[in-house]
């Protein structure tokens, strides 16, 4: 049995080695093929086999084009391309214009989003309509479309004048600001000394093996058990002994709202603007009373929130 396991391990190791070597090889060959003036040299130097030379030129050209494309893509943020819809019944014989929006944050590429347009109006080739897209629903794509694209009606197209460039710009702004806000919330968690998303998830699992019940309050005052009262008092006593700290920071998916929970039972709910400013917030203590001195502090840039709250 032991030998079997050892063999399996060895095989797995070899596989890993092979794949790492393969990627290394791909990397090297790519670097070699991207050498400047390579195509000139291939063209000018004498070779014994003419067909090999043609092949080499082709490969070099392909890589050069690819490099050019990727460089453009990483610098421009929004790029356009053409796609052929495979559907034989597609509008405008399947001609599609796609735009790709690259989102990069803190020097790192995060994600890419696509919007594909077709031309539904045979009489007017300039009118575009969104055909497919990969924009998550928390981005107000529909509002942007209403603002910058003509809307289809029973007879022809009406509405605003089409402005594809501004549409793309604003859509990119929405996407990037969304990503920036979520990064900012992660940063807040780090600043408050809270565990990162993964360990947090694990802890939540242990705390709520089924899920988190949102209406977990007794419907009537009389239903409240003495035991529960005891428990709350217990917690409060503990809270008084321990130094006050933030126990949880949470945001909704579009990151328009952040909630902060303290160890003494205070909770804050804040509204976030698109450009990452805390617009307004309410802090309440466990029994529902408003803590106004903290509530005034929350307003400002999202980045300094923890500093403002702990100061």
């Amino acid at each position, binding site marked *: 049995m032991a030998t079997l396991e050892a063999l399996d391990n060895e095989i797995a190791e070899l596989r890993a080695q092979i794949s790492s070597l*393969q*990627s290394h090889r*791909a*990397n090297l060959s*790519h670097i070699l093929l991207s050498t400047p003036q390579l195509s000139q040299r291939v063209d000018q130097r004498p070779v014994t086999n003419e067909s090999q030379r043609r092949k080499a030129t082709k490969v070099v050209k392909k890589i050069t084009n*690819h*490099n050019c494309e*990727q*460089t453009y*893509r*990483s610098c421009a943020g929004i790029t356009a391309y053409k796609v052929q819809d*495979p*559907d*034989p*019944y*597609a509008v405008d014989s399947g001609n599609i214009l796609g735009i790709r929006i690259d989102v990069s944050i803190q020097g790192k*590429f995060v994600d*890419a989003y*696509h919007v*594909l347009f077709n031309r539904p109006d045979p009489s007017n080739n300039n009118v575009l309509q*969104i055909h*497919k*897209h*990969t*924009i*998550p*629903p*928390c981005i*107000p794509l*529909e*509002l*942007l479309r*209403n*603002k910058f694209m003509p809307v289809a009606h029973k007879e022809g197209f009406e509405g605003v004048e089409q402005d594809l460039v501004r549409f793309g710009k604003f859509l990119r702004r929405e996407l990037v600001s969304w990503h920036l806000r979520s990064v900012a919330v992660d940063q807040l968690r780090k600043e408050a000394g809270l565990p990162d998303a993964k360990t947090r998830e694990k802890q*939540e*699992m242990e705390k*709520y*093996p*089924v*899920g*988190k*019940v*949102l*209406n*977990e309050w*007794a*419907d009537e005052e009389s*239903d*409240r*058990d003495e*035991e*529960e009262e005891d*428990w709350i008092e217990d917690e409060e006593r503990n809270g008084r002994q321990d130094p006050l700290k933030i126990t949880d920071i949470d945001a*909704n*998916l*579009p990151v*328009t709202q952040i909630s902060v929970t303290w160890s003494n039972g205070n909770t804050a709910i804040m*509204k*976030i603007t*698109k450009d990452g400013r805390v617009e307004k917030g309410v802090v309440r203590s466990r029994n529902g009373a408003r803590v106004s001195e903290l509530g005034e502090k929350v307003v400002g840039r999202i980045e300094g929130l923890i500093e403002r709250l702990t100061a």
Partner: protein
Amino acid sequence: MAPPPPPPKVTAPDYKNIPHAHRIPSSHREVQRVFSGLSRQSLLNLVQFWLHKTRRAFCRPYLSGDKSDADGDNGAYVPAHSCEEVLEFYAERNKSGHGSKRELLHRILEGDWRHGITMFQLATAEIEYFLLHPHTLQWTAMRLTKTPRDRANFQDMEFTDESQHLPQFHAPTFLANLAKEITPIVKAHYLLLRPKSYPMTILRVYIHDSPYSNEASLAPKKKSSDNATKALFLIWPDGTDFVYPSLLTSLGRHADEGSRKLKEMVIEAIPKAFSRPMGRYQLLPTKFSSKLLSTVLAYRGPGKSNNAGGGFNIFVETSLNQNSLDIIASLGREALDKNKSTKATTRAPGPGRKRKLEDPEVHKRTKRWNTAQSRFGNSAKPDDGKGINRLEVRMDDPFPPVPNSSPRQNQETSGLDRAQAAKRGRKGRPSLLDRTAEEQEQIESSDEDVWIPDVRISFHGSHVFAGLRQLVEIGIVDGEKMPGWMTGEAGVTIGVVKDGRIRRGEVPGF
């Protein structure tokens, strides 16, 4: 047995919700159905969950202090002295792995909760049940949109100020509003829960068709014959404006008319509960339903795949989205792999002569496979967990002209068709696919020469699009001539085909 709660003297109808702590007998049919479907681990998890300090108020087990003299000692289990003792017992079972599911179930229903299961317990158990058995409910995706009158204002607004294009969800406010709509007509128990496994909020509404909200009224009446499930589930995925109600009854039972009406009423109350002054919402169908929650989340969820179905899903997640600075990834590993696989197939057939004979077949197969790949992309794989169980379409395209047919014949048949349609109209419940009067008029007023019969096609199966993909791969369906709606790119499960495409515009969210 538990002492029956003293019958309240005044049973006047009231305007309260059913509280979490009210109990229904452990022998109740709903309790039996839900609890017997749970796994051993989920039973243990639930007990842990119920006996957490914050929840004991509405999950109190039967303790020795509750024993009344009239009871005698007829229970199969000795009641524990404190919640900690009960908790410890189940924690020990969890650790040691002793005791079968049946044994634990018996202990829960006949021992520690012999005096009845509270509404809170039943609700959490049933949510656990459907997360364990994702096929038991049919989910229909609906969308909350602002009513048209408001939309006119909406367009004028500077959109950057409008940070809330999605309806705002605040649990206590929402529940209070919902209860305000529902309680005068029917009593209900509500439980809002965020499950650990999906990014969404679940609302379970237990409909109690009675004017009373007291505990005694919850016990089943002896002669009651309704066997429809009383719980309705509603799901809000995070960061979207969709709602998925579980419209149909679970476990294949047919709901009687009365309980169906009640459920519809609850669903109608949803947009009202979301509405605020100057911001009215309405609930619109999105023509999508599936038994699998993961499917609904993929087609009407918070992610990127809602409007990129079928072959277009290559834009969601593939080398197309790779980091453009990562040269190898952006070149596409697929290109590398493809080289390899073609080499392998050309080498495999062996001796020269045989290879020549087989080549056309192999070539055809790879061609078909490539066509399927180009039409379906990476979607419609049998095990991707994104299957739909039903696809229904109505064809509104004219029937292809049949050679040797005189116009007269055509007219006769269309008359026949109309007669058939009339006949169908009389019986049965109207289908969602029935033509509206307007559409019918449009068809009749159009060119006389075309014949547009009322043809409906429906596909059934565990994963309709994976099946269609397989048909393309083995060459039964021509992958190149196949219309796009057969690949699932329209993202609907019910629709009307016009000009070879599913008519859009009716689907909100384009």
